[in-house]
């Protein structure tokens, strides 16, 4: 027999999956603009704001379900995890907006040099992680969620390589500062993808793991 709680959970899941699609679009757009030297900040900001508002909706829905139905066990586990995931998805949008903002404000939307192609490689891995995190959310795929840890280590490695490189880089100050902040935001997106992975493992197994 279907419970009233199930309908609420379904609604919450729908919000989260839609947020996932928007977050993916936001990050791809922001990174594309950054790498190609295009000003996409207005569109990215608008998408990021949509994610903020949807995150509030998701939290409202989650609290309503807890308050009305006092769920226990796996239902409560899912709702609590969904609150965290909504926050992670909102952060995806925020960091995408940060990248577009500094690109416009600090680098004046110019295409900054990336001599070692570290940013491009990092961006590719981050986009893969975002995609995997959303796919794992859709299917509650524990194995896919666990793969995020490995890619996150690779992103971290590239991030530190960029910081080492920046100490001796001979590119313009404007681009250097922009790039340093951009790689930081990419690294933070990767962190949130991994947090999502941890939440997905918890939803599916009840096991609290630290993937980082």
């Amino acid at each position: 027999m279907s419970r009233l709680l199930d309908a609420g959970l379904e609604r919450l899941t729908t919000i989260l999956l839609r947020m996932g699609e928007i977050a993916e679009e936001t990050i791809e757009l922001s990174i594309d603009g950054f790498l190609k030297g295009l000003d996409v900040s207005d569109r990215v900001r608008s998408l990021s704001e949509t994610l903020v508002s949807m995150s509030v909706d998701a939290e409202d829905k989650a609290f309503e379900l807890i308050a009305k139905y006092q769920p226990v066990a796996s239902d409560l586990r899912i709702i609590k995890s969904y609150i965290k995931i909504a926050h992670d998805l909102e952060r995806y949008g925020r960091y995408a907006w940060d990248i577009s903002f500094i690109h416009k404000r600090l680098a004046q939307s110019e295409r900054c040099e990336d001599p070692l192609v570290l940013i491009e490689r990092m961006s590719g891995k981050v986009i893969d992680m975002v995609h995997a995190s959303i796919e794992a959310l859709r299917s509650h795929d524990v194995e896919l969620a666990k793969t995020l840890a490995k890619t996150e280590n690779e992103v971290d490695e590239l991030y530190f390589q960029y910081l080492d490189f920046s100490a001796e880089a001979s590119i313009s100050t404007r681009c250097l500062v922009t790039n340093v902040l951009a790689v930081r935001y990419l690294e933070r997106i990767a962190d949130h993808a991994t947090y999502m992975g941890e939440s997905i493992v918890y939803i599916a197994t009840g096991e609290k793991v630290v993937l980082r």
Partner: protein
Amino acid sequence: MEKRSYSWFERRRRTEALNLAQNQITKALDTTALLDKAMQYFLAEKRKEAVQSIEKLFKTEEDVDSLRREIFKELSKGGALSAESREDLMHLVKRLDTLADYVKDAARCLKMLVDTNIPKELLENTGRMTSTLVKCATTLRGSIEKISEDPAVAIEKAKEVERTEHEIDQNYLDTKPLFIKYAQQMNPGSIVIFDDLIEFVEQAADMCADTADYIVILAGRE
């Protein structure tokens, strides 16, 4: 710190969750004052005192976090409060917990920068942001206190929180371009940490405004 009385809570039946929530709200808002204190010490080159304030802030934030867990545990038992009141309480508690979280993250960044030389203009801008954050939190506290007693005042104060948050936003946006001006005086690591610091302060202000939005809903129902 002084325990405040929030009449919105008083009007509802006394429960353990409500007592805990009052305490949690007070402590969450206190973290902003501790961050500002640390920041002002930092600006005055009193680094040891800055670290002491940061340590106190960490302890207060731990209390906020543990109170939030206790409150949610109490609320999940159901009990004396209606579903609507439970939901309202969860919203307030969660938002203020997140606010305190961001304040703690900002303090952690400040602590990491304690032995580095940061250009004064950057510090002064950030000092303005943390002082305005205290103003934001104080106004929010005033708004919460008035929800039941005078909903119109609560709403007016909530709007004032919004305006204060915009000031912080503007300061935040004005500070980032300064990284280019001072790039030669700072290593990339310090720039990243400093950027995190101002971002966390801005997010704490966002959460302050977000809580104020919720107060408008609560006051509207009174």
